């Protein structure tokens, strides 16, 4: 027996030392300890996906934490309007091909370097490196004088300011330096990068010289916890102070429990700049959905109230691609397809779909109305909605087979247009439906493209708004998407976190966290 134990121990030690020895050679392993937690102005936030490695390119991909370190020239206010930030004011010239920004004076990067027009120019240019193309039609960036910078566009593009208002590419202002064109992780924002321990956490400390005022939190620790349920438990155990920021989603079933607990405050916001809209789209180029009456019938057959019950606090169904609380929502789209199973049956009958054999499933030319709805498991709402929609459409005689896919396979199904019905996120609205710029847009229409072009470049604001309204009408009238829903951003914090003010934007949600304190 002793020999057995001895042999096992030797085996354990040999393998463990192999691992440890080589780790030293290949990559020094980080000290596997969490930062000490002291009772001071320190906030711990749980994040679902940590940054894989610190690289220059990652500057614009920090899942919504960018806005703590970097700032942009303009930003989006609480009503969804553009307002100046690092720029004091801006002018739009030459029918929208020139943007002149007058920068605020006296702003410094967190390392003390001055923020000026040259910095803006270098920051923009460095971001263009390592990218095959610029996502914006920018021809040149020019420093006119120390505090004036001019962006010249190839053609008039009015969503330019919206895109410049996000604290990630291309709006991010990163400190330039002579050796490397930019110094990664040095911005003008309220916090500075302090420490990064791979696979465990990273910390930000306050920028003592922040131009907008005194930052009250000394430190923010981002702890990586990939499982959303464990994230909530860590909040309850007091190991983290805040969950739900960025991509770390709180499971919807945990929300009522957190709400009932006086220890925590739950914030629920919808974002205004890039609404988190998702939908079920049908393959409108293929039978049976080629017929617009069938698509409309499905919209009438889906009872959104029931879907809303299933979605709970995580999301809500909406009428079209732009939710009703967003600026520039077209009120005409409101209630366009009321729940009306009678009308749905009528439309299906008009399209030739009848239950001739009495089996409860509609058929046409001997073929039953059987279609597949594809979804993937990593978005929990998709499987819930899929089951409700399956049951509801059964009532009007449509048989839906549910098919759960892995994420990569799901994307391929979308890319190759291999589906009858499928779930998909909308992403940035004007880019998504405009066929000349979009990737994986699932509805293409010439008139829609024309309206978008009008919206991008019409010199008169009223004409742009009219075009924007029209785009929503075209999409809703054609009904390629049979159900839309908008996800809420849910954020839960320990009540000791005071003065938390959320900015209803997708990338700058916690922009004002510097005003909060413990």
């Amino acid at each position, binding site marked *: 027996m002793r020999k057995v134990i001895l042999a096992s121990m030797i085996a354990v030690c040999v393998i463990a030392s192999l691992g440890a020895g080589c780790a030293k050679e290949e990559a020094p392993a980080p000290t*596997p*300890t969490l930062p000490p937690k002291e009772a001071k102005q320190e906030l711990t936030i749980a994040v679902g996906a940590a940054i894989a490695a610190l690289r220059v390119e990652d500057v614009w991909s920090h899942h919504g934490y960018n806005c703590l370190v970097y700032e942009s020239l303009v930003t989006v206010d609480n009503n969804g309007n553009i307002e100046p930030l690092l720029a004091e004011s801006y002018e739009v010239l030459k029918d929208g091909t020139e943007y002149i920004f007058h920068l605020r004076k006296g702003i410094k990067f967190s390392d003390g370097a001055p923020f000026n027009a040259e910095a803006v120019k270098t920051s923009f240019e460095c971001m263009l490196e390592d990218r095959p193309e610029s996502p914006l039609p920018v021809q040149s960036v020019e420093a006119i004088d120390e505090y004036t910078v001019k962006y010249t566009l190839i053609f008039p593009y009015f969503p330019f300011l919206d895109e410049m208002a996000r604290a990630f590419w291309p709006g991010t202002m990163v400190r330039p330096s002579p050796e490397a064109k930019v110094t990664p992780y040095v911005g003008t924002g309220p916090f500075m990068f302090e420490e990064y321990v791979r696979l465990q956490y990273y910390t930000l400390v306050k920028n003592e010289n922040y131009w907008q005022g005194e930052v009250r939190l000394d430190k923010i620790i981002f702890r990586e916890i990939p499982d959303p349920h464990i994230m909530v438990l860590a909040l309850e155990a007091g190991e983290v102070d805040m969950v739900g920021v960025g991509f770390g989603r709180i499971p919807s079933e945990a929300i009522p429990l957190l709400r009932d607990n006086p220890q925590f405050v739950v914030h629920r916001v919808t974002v205004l700049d890039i609404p988190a809209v998702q939908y079920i789209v049908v393959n409108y180029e293929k039978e049976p959905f080629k017929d617009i009456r069938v698509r409309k019938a499905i919209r009438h057959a889906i009872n959104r109230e029931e879907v809303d019950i299933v979605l709970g606090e995580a999301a809500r169904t909406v009428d079209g691609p732009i939710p009703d609380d967003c600026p520039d929502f077209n009120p005409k789209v409101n209630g366009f397809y009321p729940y009306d199973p009678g009308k749905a049956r009528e439309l299906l009958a008009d399209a030739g779909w009848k239950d001739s054999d009495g089996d409860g499933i509609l058929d046409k030319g001997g073929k039953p109305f059987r279609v597949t709805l594809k979804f993937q498991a990593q978005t929990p709402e998709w499987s819930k909605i899929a089951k409700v929609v399956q049951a509801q459409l059964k009532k009007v005689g449509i048989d839906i087979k549910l098919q759960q896919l892995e994420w990569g396979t799901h994307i391929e199904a979308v890319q190759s247009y291999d589906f009858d019905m499928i779930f998909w996120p909308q*992403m940035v609205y004007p880019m998504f439906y405009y066929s000349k710029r979009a990737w994986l847009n699932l509805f293409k229409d010439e008139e829609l493209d024309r309206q978008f072009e009008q919206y991008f470049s019409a010199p008169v604001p009223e004409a742009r708004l009219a075009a924007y309204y029209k785009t929503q009408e075209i999409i809703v009238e054609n009904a390629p998407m049979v159900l839309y829903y908008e996800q809420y951003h849910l954020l839960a914090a320990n009540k000791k976190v005071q003065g938390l003010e959320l900015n209803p934007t997708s990338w700058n949600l916690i922009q004002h966290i510097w005003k909060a304190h413990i």
Partner: protein
Amino acid sequence: MARYILKRILIMLVVLFVVSVVTFSLIHLAPGDPATLLAMARYGVEVTPEQIEWVGREMGFDAPIHAQYFIWLGHVFHGDLGASLRTDQPVLSEIWLRLPATLELVFAAMIIGLIVAIPLGVISATRQHSIIDNATMIGALIGVSMPGFWLALLLILVFSVHLGWLPVCGRGGVEHLILPAITLGVSTAAINMRVMRSSMLEVLRQDYILTARAKGLSQRVITYRHALRNALIPVVTLTGIQFGITIGMAVIIETIFAWEGIGKLLVDSIYARDFTMIQGCVLCISALVVLSNLLVDILYAYLDPQIRYENV
């Protein structure tokens, strides 16, 4: 013995080669365009077709599959497993960074599995049909039936949230290891316990035990000096097999407890179609499993002097 070990190591190399060919073929057969997924990981969901094409060319996906394999194999012979397609980090250093975490967890779980299972299995066998035996067997049944993720949540809820004794997740000191190791060790212990019990029962019915009894040896001496060593052989075999299974199970436990091990790295890489990383992880795990089987075979010789590998 040395010849035997050398032969086994040669076989191990063949096994690893076959594993690499199978893994390479399987990941290329799986649906989902790697260039798209990698471009999305790099540029976000608003990626353009041009960016996808660019990433595909940069990663060499335009070469024929067999050419891609031989290029990769050539690098492996030079000790270079390549760089992660997703993060650009060297695969080998990523694996070495996380391997200690997985080994720590798996060994802790297996030690728990053995420390709990061996005494309880022996007690159950020597007191067959007693209350202790029944209770142990019911416990084993529960242990083997409980899903790991559920047990993990339950343990966290009790020991971290309500009692506040142990941290919820993360890797750090011994206190961080306790919950994940118990979660992972419970089913191992349950299986070991059942095997230990039945093996012990069988040994206790052997003639030499009867002889020992006839010689007037005490039950204690019979059980621990004469029966236990033989009864352990099936448990040792099982432990070798369980090593591979436990690494597999560790994937879920690693995700739940934010324990950055090789299992989680592998799953994340599969989702992102990070081919080089998948290959590296699978090779590493295969090598560990083959190595653990070799160790088990060597352990046999210590347990049972009749087993020797001189003429194999």
